């Protein structure tokens, strides 16, 4: 059911503005004032979406956001596969983020790769009272003994570490020296820092700069460069996304010398300063280190989008634009090669999805990047927003992705999102696990757009058929015709007729 096809654009805008006003009435005055700044209806031609972002969440509302630890350990560092990432502090943070993000990797878990293990210092009361540095020292010794093939260690600090004043930097330096210059990275990603996971990404990027790049030695960077070397930055390899991306880059003649950070390794991080181009998928989480590499090593970076054939082709050409004709031809060759697959997917799925409307609420880049893929299938995104976006995300969204009249909601909370969906009645909602069951109970088809709902990959040409199939199976599942008991449906129809 789509409003978009029956209303004029002015009607849509007016309706969406009314919806926002109505939602705000529930709040105490002070809160309503603050939330009003995060909700808007997009006006075509504007430089951004007209919402405030990257501000503190309001206490007591059900924000969907996480914390800095989630941004650093859960997103940026956690997927580096040959390093051991210590959740330093109490047991919970590591436990809840254990294996939940589907950052696929190849390796022998527990021996030379460690992504799906949960290493923690499991703080007890005495560690809070006496400090955790001594425990950390001992813990690193134990790691070295039990996991001799680890290539490095990171220390991901949880809330208490900063509050009790532990000196994890000193421990890192001392232990690194003791183990012959081993890479041991302290990351100050306590959950109370900043307003969301976003600061955790930034802190994690800074840790790469300070504890990897600033400590590179000729021995670590013995790497034979080629003119076609690129690094994939900001792809976390959710169900293999970075692999279905990498294969295209290699097919067009580039050499991918590093993946950040999905299926990535310490050696790849160390090799990256020799890339000719950094290609950046998740701008939000890794623009910082990309800018740093540009400044310090002179490596240009470009954003790309591998969701859906239109954006894939556009991105392949954009990337090729940084290289010679050989690569440009390679890009065209790849586009031509996959065109029959694209045509077959669109022929099969577009008739089932044409005109369907979608509302999104995700993190990173997805609130904008997946819009093209939906449009390739004839669908329309009528509402979108970021969990932890900044103004530059909303600029990119306004300038390249959303249509006039789209409902925009920054840091939407459970209450607002439910009301918006109730009023807009989209055919599909794309968000996370915390939202999934709420909307399914309401009878609204849903896909988890953080984890691909355990499916995927969605990136690249090999990912697009999976994306299309998944949206079709969600929207057109016969289960949605069963949500109303037939006797109740009959009773409701009678009631309506009687009115």
């Amino acid at each position, binding site marked *: 059911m789509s409003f978009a096809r029956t209303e004029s654009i002015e009607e849509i805008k007016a309706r969406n503005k009314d919806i926002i006003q109505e939602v705000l009435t529930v709040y*105490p005055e*002070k*809160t309503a004032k603050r939330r009003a700044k995060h909700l808007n209806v997009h006006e075509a031609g504007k430089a951004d979406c007209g919402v405030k972002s990257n501000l*503190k*969440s*309001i*206490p*007591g*509302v*059900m*924000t969907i956001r*996480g914390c*800095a630890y*989630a941004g650093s350990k859960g997103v940026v560092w956690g997927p580096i596969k040959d390093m051991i990432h210590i959740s330093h502090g*109490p*047991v*919970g943070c590591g*436990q*809840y983020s254990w294996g*939940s993000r589907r950052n*696929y990797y190849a390796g022998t878990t*527990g021996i*030379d790769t460690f992504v799906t*293990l*949960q*290493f923690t*210092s499991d*703080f007890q009361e005495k*560690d809070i009272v006496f400090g955790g540095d001594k425990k950390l020292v*001992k813990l690193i010794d134990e790691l070295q*003994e*039990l996991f001799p093939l680890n290539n490095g260690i990171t220390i991901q600090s949880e*809330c208490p570490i*900063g*509050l009790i004043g532990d000196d994890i930097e000193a421990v890192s330096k001392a232990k690194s020296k003791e183990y012959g210059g081993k890479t041991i990275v302290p990351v100050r990603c306590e959950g109370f*820092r900043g307003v969301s996971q976003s600061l955790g990404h930034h802190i994690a990027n800074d840790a790469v700069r300070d504890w990897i790049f600033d400590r590179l030695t000729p021995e670590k960077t013995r790497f034979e460069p080629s003119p076609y070397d690129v690094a994939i930055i900001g792809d976390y390899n959710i169900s293999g996304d970075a*692999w279905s991306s990498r294969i295209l880059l290699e097919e067009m003649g580039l050499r991918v*010398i*590093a*993946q950040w950070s999905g299926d990535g*390794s310490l*050696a*790849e991080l160390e090799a990256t300063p020799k890339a000719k181009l950094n290609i950046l998928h998740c701008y939000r989480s890794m623009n910082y280190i990309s800018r740093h590499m540009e400044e310090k090593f002179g490596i240009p970076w470009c954003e790309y989008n591998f969701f859906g054939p239109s954006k894939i082709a556009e991105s392949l050409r954009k990337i090729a634009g940084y290289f010679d004709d050989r690569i440009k031809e390679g890009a065209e060759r790849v586009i031509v090669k996959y065109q029959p697959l694209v045509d077959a997917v669109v*022929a*099969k799925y577009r008739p089932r999805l044409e005109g369907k409307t979608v509302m999104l609420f995700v993190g990173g880049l997805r609130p904008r990047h997946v819009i093209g893929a939906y449009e390739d299938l004839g669908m329309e995104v009528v509402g979108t927003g970021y969990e932890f976006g900044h103004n530059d995300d909303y600029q990119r969204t306004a300038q390249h992705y959303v249509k006039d009249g789209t409902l925009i909601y920054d840091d939407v*909370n459970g209450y607002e999102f439910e009301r918006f969906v109730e009023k807009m009645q989209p055919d599909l909602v794309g968000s*996370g696990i*915390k939202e999934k069951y709420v*909307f399914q*109970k*309401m*009878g609204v088809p849903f896909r988890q757009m953080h984890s691909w709902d355990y*499916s*995927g*990959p969605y990136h690249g040409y*090999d990912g697009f058929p*999976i994306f299309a199939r998944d949206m079709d199976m969600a929207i057109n599942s016969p289960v949605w015709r069963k*949500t*109303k*008991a037939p006797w109740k449906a009959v009773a409701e129809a009678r009631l309506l007729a009687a009115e």
Partner: protein
Amino acid sequence: MAQNAEHVLDHVELFRGPEYQQMLANKKKMFENSRDPAEVERIREWSKTPEYREKNFAREALTINPAKACQPLGAVFASVGFEGTLPFVHGSQGCVAYYRSHLSRHFKEPSSCVSSSMTEDAAVFGGLNNMTDGLANSYNMYKPKMIAVSTTCMAEVIGDDLNAFIKTSKEKGSVPQDFDVPFAHTPAFVGSHITGYDNALKGILEHFWDGKAGTAPKLERVPNEKINFIGGFDGYTVGNTREIKRIFDLMDVRYTILADNSDVFDTPTDGEFRMYDGGTTLEDAANAVHAKATISAQQWCTEKTLAFIAGHGQEVLAFNHPVGVSATDDLLMALSRITGKEIPEALARERGRLVDAMADSSAHIHGKKFAIYGDPDLCYGLTAFLLELGAEPVHVLSTNGNKAWEHKMQALFASSPFGRNCHAYPGRDLWHMRSLLFTEPVDFLIGNTHGKYLERDTSTPLIRIGFPIFDRHHHHRSPVWGYQGGMNVLVKILDKIFDEIDRKTSVAGTDYSFDIIR
């Protein structure tokens, strides 16, 4: 190109294709600085040895793959068991996102909970403003009947005083003076999720029974004939609570389930999202003080709560996850003794059916060796049932089990000839379990979803019972308690045993042991 619009390959098959395998091999060889495969194999073999086990068990600082979560998760789990109750976690907000995700991933249900979203400024100045604004916002938006407050480690480290904060917030008009805001301090660096369950439940009962934080007279206990029942932190809360209600109804016992979250984790899909559903009414929570007795299904989940209740003059009684015949017998007989009600024939017949099933199938289980891990009560209950089945629970490991648990487990082993070579491991984690499985192998492993890596590493087939179960669906809807629950557990174990026989004998070219009849 392997991908195809007519037969879409997802990650399960796509990356097994030759072009991806080649790509991954090249990446490894050229860019990963990976280890020599022979060296990887050598370390892998070494990690299976008694020598490695010794080093592994000598660990003092490092915890690897613990089978426990932190206090506030248990507090949230208990809080949503009360009518119209919104859990409010005071501290940094990321924690709440984690609790909600964790519970949703297990139950495949929405999980509602708010945070006071404390950040750096609150770390310096304290979280009073966050509490005041937060309570006002939650009260207005989510229209709860009660807001149950617990804490994260952050709020505990800086020492926020919940009692004072809530009082001040009420004075500032965040919520009405008489609105129920029970609270519990639940630092993540003490105990585990079962401690949090205990603290939150005690906090809620204390609120209603002991004068609502000094704002109302304490309740005067007027004993009645009702029985309180507490399930504890339980991944099977949906199936188990309903089974317990059925048993109470069959016995014609009047009861109050305290922290009954069986409906909120099992709402229908019918076009409506129910943020609150079911739960112990606030009236029942208050009146529970008058009950004749309180029965807890989980001793280590309710230690403080039961002590508190006992202090109000009731008889209290704790079980350890009543799985199997004897545990259910004990539960029913205790109920009968306390209430004076007879155990009905219907339950005796159910019992007979479970014994019948065990007699039919015990040949397949007898003498099989098991390893078990999980919460202390669950471990105890499952072990007791395995001993009844003639199985040997060789390693029983509980990361949040303590010395008292260890002693009780050892006593249980000693009570059966099948427990002779069995050991309890309190405070150990799943990396310890890995060493145990390599050095003293067993036939089957029982535990939660995280055991699948142990299954793969050690080739010990995993029977999924516990929390969390993320990678199988709907198990939580079936009880594991009572005779019916025992039947479910028995079938689960047998299915895995038969699947294993089939798997081992499903070899083309041989036609023996791959049997139709068992």
